């Protein structure tokens, strides 16, 4: 399933807010069909990098290519077309609070496709089922859901347009450990089933150990390590040392090796 074509390519990206430099030549490559994690300390510009990938921010320099489209000189029409090919899960869901969950999932289908109402309803129901929510939840408003359900509903909305690419901003943050593992399993299942590529920002060691194929470590304004867990662990950068080589991570890592 994983072939080596960069579905997202980031080359020498430079970002600065006024005098504060966030990225100084960030480069990475996300392959088709993999679950790719972006790691780093808070303030290292993970979210900024993701926002640049999804056309919410423009970097000062460098080049980002997503699904074969260069984002630097992208026109309005191309950008709009591109936006329909990815789904984004925001950290706190960002569901439209005045719409029900079903309407939240349906909104893009309604705007962008000429599908019949009946078909749209079926698609909404299938998305709810896919993320493990009952159809009844579709009638509720976002404020009536628990945190975990909001995440699932937001994931269903992100999947509504059958995207090839899924961006997740801290998908497991704010979930209980059991809920977080279930969410991980869900992401992996969706990837296997629908063949989508997943890019996620995460701090969750469990996710990194269990579902992530490759990752990039952001530190010192650039990518200090990129690759599979084994490759990243070869790095001697202080952040990698702190993050992976503490007692807890070491223990989990040993367990993982034993599992294999």
């Amino acid at each position, binding site marked *: 399933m994983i072939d080596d074509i960069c579905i997202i390519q980031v080359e020498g990206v430079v970002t600065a807010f006024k005098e504060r430099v966030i990225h100084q030549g960030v480069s990475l490559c996300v392959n088709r069909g993999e679950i790719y994690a972006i790691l780093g300390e808070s303030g290292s510009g993970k979210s900024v990098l993701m926002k640049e990938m999804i056309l919410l921010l423009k970097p000062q320099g460098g080049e980002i290519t997503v699904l074969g489209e260069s984002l630097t000189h992208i026109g309005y029409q191309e950008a709009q077309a591109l936006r329909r090919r990815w789904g984004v899960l925001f950290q706190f869901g960002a569901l439209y*609070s*005045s719409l029900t969950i079903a309407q939240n999932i349906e909104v893009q289908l309604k705007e962008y496709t000429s599908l019949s109402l009946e078909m749209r*309803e*079926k698609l909404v*129901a*299938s998305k709810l089922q896919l993320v493990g929510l009952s159809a009844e939840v579709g009638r509720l408003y976002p*404020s009536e859901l628990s945190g975990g359900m909001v995440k699932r509903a937001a994931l269903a909305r992100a999947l509504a347009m059958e995207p090839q690419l899924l961006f997740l901003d801290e998908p497991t943050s704010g979930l209980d450990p059991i809920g977080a593992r279930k969410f991980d399993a869900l992401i992996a299942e969706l990837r296997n089933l629908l063949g989508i590529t997943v890019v996620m920002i995460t701090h969750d060691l469990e996710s990194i150990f269990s579902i992530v194929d490759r990752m990039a470590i952001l530190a010192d304004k650039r990518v200090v390590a990129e690759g599979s867990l084994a490759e990243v662990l070869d790095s001697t950068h202080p952040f990698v040392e702190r993050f992976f080589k503490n007692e807890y991570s070491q223990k989990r890592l040993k367990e993982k090796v034993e599992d294999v």
Partner: protein
Amino acid sequence: MKNRWYITIEKRPRSTVLHLKGLWRLERIAEIELSTLIRELPPRRPLVWDVSEIEGFDSAGVLLFREWYEKSTTLYDEVSVRGYTPKQKELYLLLSSVKGENLSPKERGFFEGVGRKLFNGIEQTVAFITFLGHFFATWWSTLLHPSKIRWKEIAYHLHQSGWSALLIIGLTSFLVGMVIAYQGSVQLAKFGADMFIVETVGISITRELGPMITAIVIAGRSGSAYTAEIGAMKITEEISAMRTMGFDPYHFLVLPRVIALMIALPLLIFFSDMIGIFGGMVASSMQLHISMTQFIDRLYEVLELKHYLLGMIKGPIFAFVIATIGCFRGFQVSDNTESIGLQTTASVVNGIFLVIAFDALFSVIYTEFGL
């Protein structure tokens, strides 16, 4: 019909084969229309769906296929599928229990709507009375302990609602004063009663128009701001956070706003009176050639202090109405963003209506007492 991009029919002597091909994806499936096609196949012959030539699919495509496949099983005796990949089968099975349900919010009947409106109205009234009760309790406890008054917040809101509003109040009052003088001068000139323009402008501005214009501008300006500020704090749970820290929102948010507006509004009315009369003065010197000195001399003679005071008394009361409605509406914001807009609108509409209603009440009282 673009069906031929997605399906070809092969009629064999002993069976019919439907070859599916192309992209069965969300962006395409609106083009696939099989309802007539599926009825016109040779009857009583086994039907075979061959999906091996499909180039790409997603869950929408699988759902569509399932729909037609199931329909075909009711129309034909023997139906089978061949050429599917394990992944297609997995997705098919996963989606096999999906039923399209109408998940839109339930529609309300006429009587339910009326009933809800009525109960909603009662609820709002009770909530407002509760709000006022809470407010006066806070007010009382603050009066007993004056050291607890939040001077800094009061000063901030005085600046925001008072000082910053001077320009717009001045402009509005000046224009209103001019309009009154212009309109009045035309009528008065007919009777040769030119000098009565001073009474017309002076008394109407100080008694009625100054307070009313100021209150309406402030209801639109500060009433809406109070609702939006408190409403946004409610949505982001800042108000809950304050409560858990023991900061009573009535003490920290409501009281400073109400007190500040009750101080600011009379001052603004004074300002409005001055500018309004000045506007009238400018217009009458232009229209009736009454010089400014003449105007002011006459003003001393005819404008009794009571007119000014009767106008001024309304200030704190209007301010109280606007500020309490603004804060109350802010607290009424529920946890969706749409309600901020609704409550802000309601705040301004209620505020302006109540200002006018109270003004009418004052007129009746003043007349009854012969003031």
